[in-house]
């Protein structure tokens, strides 16, 4: 880890000013990913602007939406009574992520911005276009068991590791940011990018922008949600595949649905077509099987992650069954 300058910001404006003056600077909040990356020499900011004490931690309801400050801790959000009541899917996803200690440190904004856990990204001795553009994708022909089956490019087949983001994309959240262009709102589904030719860029956040918070519109999903995370151990592991499922059910018929996947793409993977296919259908395993097949359109496996082509639809079916209380 190089020596760097450290500045603590006490107001969002000051943080934005500070970062606009120094291209080598980065924000730090929880530090749970950034400090790790700095130790391994994967990122080397010359200045850290500590935003962890900015007053962006509130969780409020405003009109028909829930607003969560970007610096609210993952554990604070998961333990919040309003969130538990209104957005249980988010709570489940948060609690499926990392460990209790990390959730006590990690912020909502930082969770969205965490980098991939691709083995090749994490080893500076191996090629990775995301870490070192032009060096090649180590995973493409390498050990790609954890990797993408949707939306990848030849440059990068890494997946986004966040659980929280899978729930947020399913729940139609909006990210509110501030920066050189002033405040703007980014639909969550557009927040993360696909790798394309520029895998080094994870999100559509512009340089110098600061996430202020996320907003989740009201919904009628509180009763029928499930976040299923399939992983190599029972806890504290990144997803092989995860599914965020939210259903609005009336008289055993699905009235509305939200469905998203984690661990399968460079971004949290929303399944809009599958959602539409669920609407109006009866709650039944056969409905879920059909929809799961639809969800897999365009999926492609690599040498070591072919299993995801089967595990993913299975996980979708299972998540829908649990959400709809079929099991």
């Amino acid at each position, binding site marked *: *880890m190089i020596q760097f300058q450290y500045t603590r910001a006490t107001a969002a404006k000051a943080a934005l000013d500070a970062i606009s003056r120094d291209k080598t600077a980065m924000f730090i909040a929880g530090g749970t990913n950034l400090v790790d990356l700095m130790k391994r020499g994967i990122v080397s900011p010359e200045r850290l602007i500590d935003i962890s004490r900015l007053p962006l931690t509130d969780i409020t309801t405003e009109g028909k939406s829930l607003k969560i400050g970007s610096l609210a801790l993952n554990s604070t959000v998961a333990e919040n009574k309003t969130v538990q009541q209104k957005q249980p899917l988010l709570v489940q996803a948060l609690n499926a992520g990392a460990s209790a200690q990390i959730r006590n440190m990690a912020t909502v904004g930082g969770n969205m911005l965490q980098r991939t856990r691709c083995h090749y990204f994490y080893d500076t001795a191996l090629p990775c276009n995301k870490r070192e553009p032009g060096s090649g994708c180590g995973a493409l022909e390498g050990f790609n068991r954890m990797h993408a089956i949707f939306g990848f490019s030849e440059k990068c087949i890494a997946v986004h590791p966040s659980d929280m983001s899978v729930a947020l994309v399913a729940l139609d959240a909006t990210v509110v940011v501030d920066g050189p262009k002033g405040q703007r709102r980014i639909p969550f589904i557009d927040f993360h990018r696909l790798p394309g030719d520029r895998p080094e860029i994870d999100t559509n956040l512009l340089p110098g922008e600061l996430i202020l918070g996320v907003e989740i519109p009201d919904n009628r999903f509180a009763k029928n949600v499930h976040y299923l995370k399939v992983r190599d*151990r029972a806890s504290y592991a990144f997803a092989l595949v995860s599914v965020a499922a939210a259903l609005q059910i009336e008289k055993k018929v699905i009235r509305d649905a939200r469905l998203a996947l984690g661990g399968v793409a460079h971004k949290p993977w929303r399944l809009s077509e599958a959602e539409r296919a669920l609407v109006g259908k009866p709650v039944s395993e056969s409905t879920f099987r059909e929809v799961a097949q639809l969800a897999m359109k365009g999926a492609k496996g690599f040498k070591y992650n072919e299993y995801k082509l089967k595990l993913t639809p299975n996980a979708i079916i299972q998540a829908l069954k649990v959400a709809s209380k079929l099991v």
Partner: protein
Amino acid sequence: MKFFDKVIGDPMNRVDGKLKVTGAARYSAEYQLPNLSYGVVVSSTIAKGRIRSIDSRAALRAPGVIAVISHENAIKVPGWADNEHPTEPPTGGRPLRAFYNNRVYSNGQPIAIVVADTYERARHAAMLVKAEYEEEKHETNFEKNKGKAVVPAVVKKNPKSGLADYERGKADAYKTASVRLEAEYVHPSEVHNPMELQAITAYWEADDKLIVYDKVQGTKPTQQAFANEWKIPVQNVRVISEFVGGAFGNGLHNWPHETAAIIAAKMVKRPVKVMLTREQMFFMVGYRPYTWQKIGIGADKDGRLTGIYHEAIGQTSSYEEFTESTLQQSKMMYTSPNIGTKYRLLPLDVSTPIWMRGPGEATGAFALESAIDELAFALNIDPVQLRLMNHTDTDPEKNLPWSTKYLKECIQVGAEKIGWSKRSLKPGGVRSGEWLVGYGMGVGTFGAHRGAAAVRAKLLANGSVVFQSAVTDIGPGTGTAMVQIASEHLGISPEKITFQLGNSDFPQAPNQGGSATVATVGSAVVATCQAMKERLLEMAPSADKRFANLKLEDVTFDKAHLSITRSPSVKVAYTELLKKQNLTELDVLQDSKPSQEASKYSRYSFSVHFAEVHVHPMTGQVRVKKVVSCADAGTIVNKKTAANQMIGGVTGGIGMALQEDAVMDHRFGRYVTKDLADYHVPVHADVPPVEVYFVDKPDYIVDPMGTKGLGEIAIIGVAPAITNAIFNATGKRIRELPVTPDKLI
């Protein structure tokens, strides 16, 4: 047969427990020596070749950097012979010599060490060191090179070695059995990954006097190794390993980072502390080797085994031969007139493996105990019955009686406690909601070894006794067990006894390993207590003449007093004798080694593990719901720590069965799963309640306490118990570990 109940509560707490729960226990990187400097090891990024140059200019300019040491400028270690490299592997080879020359034999090999005044500065400067290589083509792919496996050099040297090809009856007799099967099993490389990162603090007190605080499993073997390396008298090397934060075998070898730290300390003339990173733990401190196995097994229709053939190929490095007893269990566990084994090694451009808990026996038991389960299924016989039917009452390999063997009793108790009667012979027959329920079992065995050791005891005027042994305690509770043995044999309450260990200044003890510590060091404690009692009896007439001319068996030693057994009112306190003789202490040193008598018996510990496993058919998730482990390990000195050790073995077995996999990308010859996020070991949520039962029968042939080893049999047989249970739940036989969810959907 009496079994202890599930072990809970009472037995003695660990003597070092308070130090551990308060954070006061000091591990190798936790000694704050004056003028301490920090060393960070730089590792190679190629698997094979030569280092053309090392550019350390930027590192040397970085603030606080004291030295950058590599083969280009390292002092030569005087004890290293001047040959560059063993000519043609495998020759038995030799350990890697840090910074000896420009050769790279494996990825992640230490190529330099940066020393700085703070850890942060050393870590940063280490990233600034740049190496240029002349790369050579490497071979790290086991499966691709399997055909190149060779006979171990140790067998070439000694055809009677236990690793030589073995045949009893006809090796391939299974091929003509009425029910038979052949199967191949793959065990990936596993890494010990103790929670404490490998660490050493090295300091040259004088030009020829070295002190190391080192994470090792033996202070004496390490002392000898470093004395040889530096050509200095053995007593000039002090090795201190008071607390070892787990090791599981990786402290049974001295590794290049240790010598790197010692070289650095010599060159910068101040103490150097080195702690490896978690990635480096995968590349330079050993691992359980990737092993391919094949079993052919056959029985008659009633289930009597007629033949077992077991073959294994284990991976080793190009420069050093590592062998283990992968096939031992197949030679002696089951009655079969025909047995054949064949063990080979495959040298690759990787670092050297080392014993990892249960070592080869655990790897071998995965194959053998899976094959037994497969055969039972083919025969439509309950696997418990099949094992009982083919139980060996004497050792068929050595043609000797067992010293003790209570495996049958273990199997019976275990089957009852797991609820074996609920098991369906047909896979998939039991469900719990959506989950498929399966039951499986696996048997384990490991030699009940005992070595030679010496122990010192000092009885002090205040009535306390200090024992000393160079042995280490990597976690099982050695100090605690020794205090209990000493207490019983000296007639002094445990609170009065201190057992000092982990220091090469103390009397001789071997490595802590091979489940032999209690038998080896405990026997020396007993011998020392005996010697101390003889001395006390000699002194006793000075306090009371009636003790004159008595023999030890006439006297009772209890509550820190001697008394005449037939007239207990005649008694004298140990401390009284010191006073009478004007002594401030009574110092006794005694050694102890195995008896000749023992060689007339075949000596093994035995265990059986039963697992109840739930498998989710849609997602392939496996949850181990309950494990029952029964051990025939002779006298159990401390039921609390012993049960804990068993639970630990089960936890390791869960990792082996379901999670652990050090994956290498062979294009680079470099591990890709190399930290605790990518290389999974069990977490709390993976480990269910584990019930442990011990047979309450001493084995006095092995040692005077009647103990047999426990550490290895705790894990041997666990992985097949789980994979057999998975088969029973799903009908899926996975012969390549670990059984991750993708293999079950």
